């Protein structure tokens, strides 16, 4: 492979090449930066690029590798591999906007734990990727810095809210990227962009330094081109963090993957509620065919029921905005971010927030404030939290019978920019298959399972029981050993 197309390598291939000494981290990083340079005006995956920092980290990685040749010291496991980070994760000294005007000039004094662990493992930061403002959205159109475009069709959205990260990985700008997933914000863009993405179990990956949206739902996730690539980064970022009291102090297992695509003994459930009237026929066909392939690899497949699925959407769109309305109270024009000139405190709050937040963020703050307000709390928020318990129990009961659940990620492939612009409810419906997973706190892994007639990627997701990410990597990896959807790249 010549030095100017190193960006085409998957993470595992790039790691092997670095280890063999075929090329340097600097060459790999330069190839990614050149790829970004060539495509960014069309794709707009990034809000902030950090080329100088990336080259400095890459040179340092090369120096460490050269020194280890003499000393024999152990190397950080991901030494010299580039990564992009969604702009809702704090990066020390690198502007972190959350896609919002209100944080346009915010420079965090610390790194998010997940980012710090990736850097400790030797990764090289390429930049901060675009997203819907404060991760609220399903298309990346809600960014104050302009929309990201889908590398498979530039007239379409990449999904959201982590659309910049998904587009960057799909466009071969970076072998891996961080996202966050509160209601599908990793899995849905992974599906729309034809790549792999994981939303971990709630409590598996630290959220310290992830700017809060819906705290009972938020998770830090990853994008890459395969389940194997995901597993390599995931094993470095998972685990207890004393700075995040919601992480559990459980051992992180080895995510080493088997050599053969053998799913004997693996029980997979297919929930009937995830195949609904109105979904794109090609999506259903691709997912059903992929499930047959899993069966051919030895998996035992059976239909299951998650009976409260239809209530996940209204539950989510009460709980998430309620939590957001509390979390976003911190943007007050005093400690950081935008501050509108005002004579009084009240005016300062109202003007700063009115000018700094975009329309979807205001809409969710309003909705959440209403759901929590006196007289409406029990009917909306209280009832939603009870129905959430039923949704969570659906998953607990399902995972007594099966090891994993296989289903579509979204009812259709990527939609066009502006298609849902004036209809928030239609946009929310894009999340109908991804929200229940966050409400149950279980892990999900999305990966490509085919293409529709227009050449747009179709994704599917595997769900597991709490803290059982390993089974998701195993099944998706087996599938990717016998299929090549995940190796296809958009023509750009």
């Amino acid at each position, binding site marked *: 492979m010549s030095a100017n197309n190193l960006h085409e390598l998957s993470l595992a291939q790039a790691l092997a090449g670095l280890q063999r000494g075929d090329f340097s981290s600097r060459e790999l990083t330069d190839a990614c930066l050149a790829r970004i340079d060539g495509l960014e005006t069309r794709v707009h995956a990034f809000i902030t690029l950090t080329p100088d920092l990336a080259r400095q980290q890459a040179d340092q990685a090369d120096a460490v590798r050269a020194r280890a040749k003499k000393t024999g010291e152990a190397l950080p496991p991901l030494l010299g591999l580039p990564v992009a980070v969604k702009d809702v994760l704090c990066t020390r000294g690198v502007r972190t906007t959350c896609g919002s005007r209100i944080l346009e*000039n*915010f*420079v965090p*004094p610390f790194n998010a734990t997940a980012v710090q662990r990736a850097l400790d493992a030797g990764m090289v930061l390429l930049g901060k990727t675009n997203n819907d403002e404060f991760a609220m959205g399903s298309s990346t159109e809600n960014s104050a810095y302009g929309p990201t475009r889908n590398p498979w069709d530039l007239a379409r959205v990449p999904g959201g809210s982590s659309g910049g990260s998904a587009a960057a990985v799909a466009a071969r700008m970076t072998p891996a990227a961080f996202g966050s997933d509160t209601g599908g914000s990793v899995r849905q863009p992974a599906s729309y962009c034809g790549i792999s993405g994981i939303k971990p179990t*709630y*409590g598996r990956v630290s959220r310290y330094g992830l700017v809060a949206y819906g705290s*009972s739902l938020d998770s830090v996730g990853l994008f890459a081109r395969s389940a194997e690539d995901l597993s390599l980064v995931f094993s470095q970022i998972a685990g207890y963090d*004393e700075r995040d*009291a*919601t*992480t*559990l*102090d*459980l051992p992180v297992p080895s995510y080493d993957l088997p050599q053969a695509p053998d799913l004997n003994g693996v029980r997979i459930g297919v929930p009937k509620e995830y195949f609904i009237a109105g979904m794109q026929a090609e999506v259903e066909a691709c997912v059903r065919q992929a499930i047959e392939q899993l069966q051919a690899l030895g998996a035992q497949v059976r239909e299951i029921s998650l009976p409260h699925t239809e*209530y996940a*959407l*209204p*539950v989510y*769109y009460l709980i998430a905005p309620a939590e957001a*309305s509390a979390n976003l109270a911190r943007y*007050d024009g*005093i400690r*950081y*971010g*935008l*501050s509108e000139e005002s*004579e*009084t405190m*009240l005016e*300062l*709050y*109202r*003007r700063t*927030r*009115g*000018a700094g*937040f975009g*329309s979807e963020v*205001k*809409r969710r*703050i*309003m909705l959440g*404030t*209403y759901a929590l*307000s006196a007289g409406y709390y029990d009917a*909306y928020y*209280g009832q*939603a*939290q*009870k*129905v*959430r*318990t*039923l949704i*969570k129990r659906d998953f607990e009961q399902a995972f007594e019978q099966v090891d994993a659940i296989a289903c579509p990620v979204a009812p259709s492939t990527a939609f066009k920019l502006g298609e849902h612009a004036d209809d928030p*409810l239609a946009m929310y419906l894009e999340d109908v298959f991804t929200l229940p997973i966050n*409400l149950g*706190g279980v892990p999900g892994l999305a990966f490509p399972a085919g293409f529709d007639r227009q050449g747009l990627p179709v994704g599917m997701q595997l769900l597991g029981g*709490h*803290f059982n990410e390993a089974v998701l990597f195993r099944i998706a990896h087996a599938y990717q050993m016998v299929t090549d959807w995940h190796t296809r790249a958009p023509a750009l």
Partner: protein
Amino acid sequence: MSLTLEEVEHIASLARLELTAEEKERYRQQLSAILDYARRLQEVDTTGIPPTSSVLPARSRLREDRVEPSLTPAELLRNAPHAEKDQFRVPPVIE
């Protein structure tokens, strides 16, 4: 259901959001539609079902309470729109 303009203004005031007249009317319509949709939750029988307090299957371990180095005042004030003598500066609160 349909929210009134007064209700929208009350929510905006609770949320400390300055909204334009156009925004108030748009949110009045959109929030009414979303809340209508959410009303389907009323059809679920939740008798005896506790609200979700946590999705975690176990309790987390709390860290030891010990003194550690933390960020300096200068680092913490670097992002402040207005700071003075190691403090955040705000408009007058008391007359």
